[in-house]
């Protein structure tokens, strides 16, 4: 069994980056970017998620099967959200007779 052990230095670097991103997302929320505010906040959240999953949860060194399972889960979440939102977003595009 080949266990890959990351150094404390790597973890510390990831940790400091996570704190910096938290500060950044809080500060950016002060600036009015219009609809971009949501996009930036979510982008930073996704980067933080990737850092936690890849480093703290050791996904970088996990077997391919584990990676496939995680990606499968995220794909299913995407199906849930994209299909539902596709309905809500496009509902008013065409007039419905009788309404």
């Amino acid at each position, binding site marked *: *069994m*080949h*266990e890959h*052990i*990351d150094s*404390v230095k790597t*973890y*510390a670097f990831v*940790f400091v980056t*996570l*704190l910096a991103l*938290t*500060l950044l*997302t*809080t500060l950016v*929320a*002060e*600036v*009015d970017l219009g609809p971009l*505010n*949501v996009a930036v*906040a*979510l982008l*930073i*959240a996704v980067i*933080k*998620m990737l850092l*936690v*999953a890849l*480093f*703290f*949860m*050791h996904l970088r060194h*996990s*077997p391919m*099967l*584990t990676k496939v*399972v*995680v990606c*499968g*889960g*995220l794909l*299913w*979440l995407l199906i*849930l*959200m994209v299909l*539902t*939102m596709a309905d*809500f*977003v496009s509902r008013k595009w065409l007039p419905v007779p009788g309404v």
Partner: protein
Amino acid sequence: MDSQTETVALREQFETAGQQKEASTLGMWVFLVTEIMFFGGLFLAYMVYRRLFPEVFWVASSSLNKIIGAVNTAVLLCSSFTMVLAVHAAQIGSRRAIVIFLILTMLLGGVFLGVKAYEWNEKFQEHHVPGPSFHLEHTTEQGRAQLFFSLYFAMTGLHALHMIIGEGLLLFLLFHAYAGKYTPAYYTPVDIGGLYWHFVDIIWIFLFPLLYLIGQH
């Protein structure tokens, strides 16, 4: 030594200790994927109602204290850092360090829950809890504002419940680590407990911007 040989023991369905560990870790990830879908439903409900009533969500979100939210995010990230150090301590076989970092993780988790309790209490005093006495300032859409706060309480409440369960898991790990059950050859429970703790952290990483930051400029 008896307890150690028992915990390292290879179950008969596995060929090697590595295979056994991989199976345990994969099992935890499969559970976490079901948790993603569990929380996913709430995130979807949030997205739908935010899309339908953007102005009210803007006002309601602005009533949350984002400094407290940011500080609590930092506290939770610190606890994830100490958790990963506990796993690291187990990998290099330092019983003392595992115990210390598990205690630190539990304390930071406790601080997070304490701040959360303070925030919830504030909501009760400000009448921001959905119900007959609900009242949110700067909006006439009281019903729709209650939707935001229903989601707020459901999402942060479910997250807090996961934190409380996590504290229980950490306590279990702490007893076993103190008894010296974890060695570099066998520390799967610490590893898996860490996966759970980091997952709960990731949920908060998304809750924080969605509840606290969206709509505040």
